[in-house]
């Protein structure tokens, strides 16, 4: 996915959105915005409130507090849902119907032609098994049928809730490729996942949710931060002082016999030149990039996904 440059009007916007079940708060004061044309990753550990949020956005459950707008409409309103395709949790279809008949049923509900059924079956590469009963499908095929149903209306906004859940590695790779394919062009995708690699590979922007609250929202690069520079030099303390005096170095500290600089990794040649010209011996110098996983663990205080 290429990162879109200019911010666009949000397709999904929530304001103080919350959901309580008796004494449990599933989602609290959530404010997210999904811009037109982007692939937005909704990232969080299991039980963080991702699915509850998506259900509220689709009108399947009612919020306890706050508001949400989807395509400028109330969540769940027929006008809003006209432009939304969704796969929430596991794909749910009629087991006694074939894949094609299941889509024919859904096509009738949303008022699209039966011709579109064959188009989306081809799009998710299920045309060859379209006559098989849904109950005979593998999990990967069921997920693909779920994506096909979500694509029936050729929606502006595609909401996919953990679409790779339960799939084997090949199935996951296929599903990611499918998401990339269907997310091209002007279509906006809101993808919930607890898989960091998936979000890093597929998404333009990410919202991180933890214990029902949005921890942060931004591009993948913003979340990962600017990275840094690792330096091994002698004498180390002198090198630290010199680096700290440079205005583009935001922090300099010694860890495990290495100088760790909070600075743009592209400045590595310049720091090398400064240290050498000051008579310091530089034996190692390399840029470091923080992974999304590091950022996530920091944001959620180390909770595993």
């Amino acid at each position: 996915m290429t990162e879109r440059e200019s911010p666009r009007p949000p397709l999904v916007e929530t304001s103080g959105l919350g959901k309580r079940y008796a004494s449990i708060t599933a989602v609290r004061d959530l404010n997210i915005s999904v811009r037109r044309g982007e692939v937005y990753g909704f990232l969080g550990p299991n039980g963080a409130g991702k699915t509850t949020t998506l259900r509220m956005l689709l009108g399947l459950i009612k919020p306890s507090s706050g508001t949400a707008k989807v395509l400028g409409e109330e969540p769940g309103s027929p006008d809003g849902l006209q432009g939304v395709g969704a796969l929430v949790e596991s794909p749910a279809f009629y087991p006694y119907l074939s894949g094609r008949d299941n889509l024919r049923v859904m096509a009738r509900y949303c008022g699209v032609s039966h011709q579109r059924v064959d188009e989306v079956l081809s799009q998710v590469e299920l045309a060859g098994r379209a006559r098989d009963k849904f109950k005979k499908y593998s999990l990967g095929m069921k997920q693909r049928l779920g994506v096909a149903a979500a694509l029936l209306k050729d929606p502006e906004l595609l909401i996919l809730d953990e679409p790779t859940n339960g799939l084997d590695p090949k199935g996951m790779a296929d599903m990611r490729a499918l998401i990339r394919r269907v997310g091209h062009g002007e279509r906006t995708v809101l993808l919930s996942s607890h898989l960091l690699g998936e979000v890093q590979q597929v998404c333009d922007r990410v919202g991180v949710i933890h214990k029902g609250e949005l921890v942060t929202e931004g591009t993948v690069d913003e979340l990962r931060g600017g990275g840094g520079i690792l330096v091994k030099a002698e004498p180390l303390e002198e090198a630290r002082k010199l680096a700290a005096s440079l205005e583009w170095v935001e922090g300099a500290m010694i860890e495990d016999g290495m100088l760790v600089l909070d600075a743009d990794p592209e400045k590595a040649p310049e720091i090398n030149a400064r240290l050498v010209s000051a008579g310091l011996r530089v034996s190692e110098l390399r840029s470091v990039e923080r992974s999304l996983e590091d950022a996530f663990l920091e944001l959620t205080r180390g909770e595993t996904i």
Partner: protein
Amino acid sequence: MLASLGAELLKLRKRPSTWVLGSIWLAVIILLSYTLVYVLVSNTPPPTVPEDTPKAQKEQLREQQQELREQQLEILFPENVVFNLTPGLPSLGAPIALILGALTVGSEYGWSTFKTVITQRPGRYAVFFGKLLALGIVLVLLVVLTFAAGAASGYVIAGLEGAPIGFPAAGELARATGAGGLILAVWAALGVLLAVLLRSTALSIGIGLVYSFALETIIFNLPIQSKAFRDAREFFPGQNSTFLAESFSGQPQGGFAEPPVDAPQAALVLLAYAAAFIVLAAFVFSRRDMD
């Protein structure tokens, strides 16, 4: 709502349980109400009379038996299909309708398919009423097929007996179809309501059948002498189904020498039940979170 109706009809048409229930129902009609009765009536042995019975009396007994046999056979002829089948609708058709109603809604909860359907756009009321409309069409078809199967069976029997073949008046058939459809609709609506409230198929069928087969009868027969209780019994759905169905038989209704409720009143009570069940189910369906 027409889009939802189309989707529902496609699902019902392709669902094996629709055909299984319909087939069981028609098989029961043909076997119990026609084939078995015809075999029994045709093979009734002559009355055993003492040897010393006068010949004239023997002849009279034989004539009486022959007359009784002809009356019993006549009920099976096509012109009496309404008279023969309508009274049986509450006892045989109601459980089938209840199961169909519970299956139509409860299975969607079991398969979690409501979330897939609702996110396709139609709106909850359109989904719900499309479902009810499709169910109503199936129930009316079931009643029509019931009379058609009865008439066809009666046609064969009349042919075997060499009797003249006639058919019921169109008005009578239409009234019976309406009454039968209403009776089945009430029980199907109860199945739908239970399925919506319990979000389950098995439990709603279980509770519905316990009510229809046992609970109402037990409550009805409670030895309570108060006038309020006696009046309240006239508003039970099972009793009113029986009152309405048996109004087509010309026989005493619901075990009463004098029917406490006439057919129009029974129809009104059933309409009120159907409306109440549907409104309550629609309200809960539209408001509740869809997990």
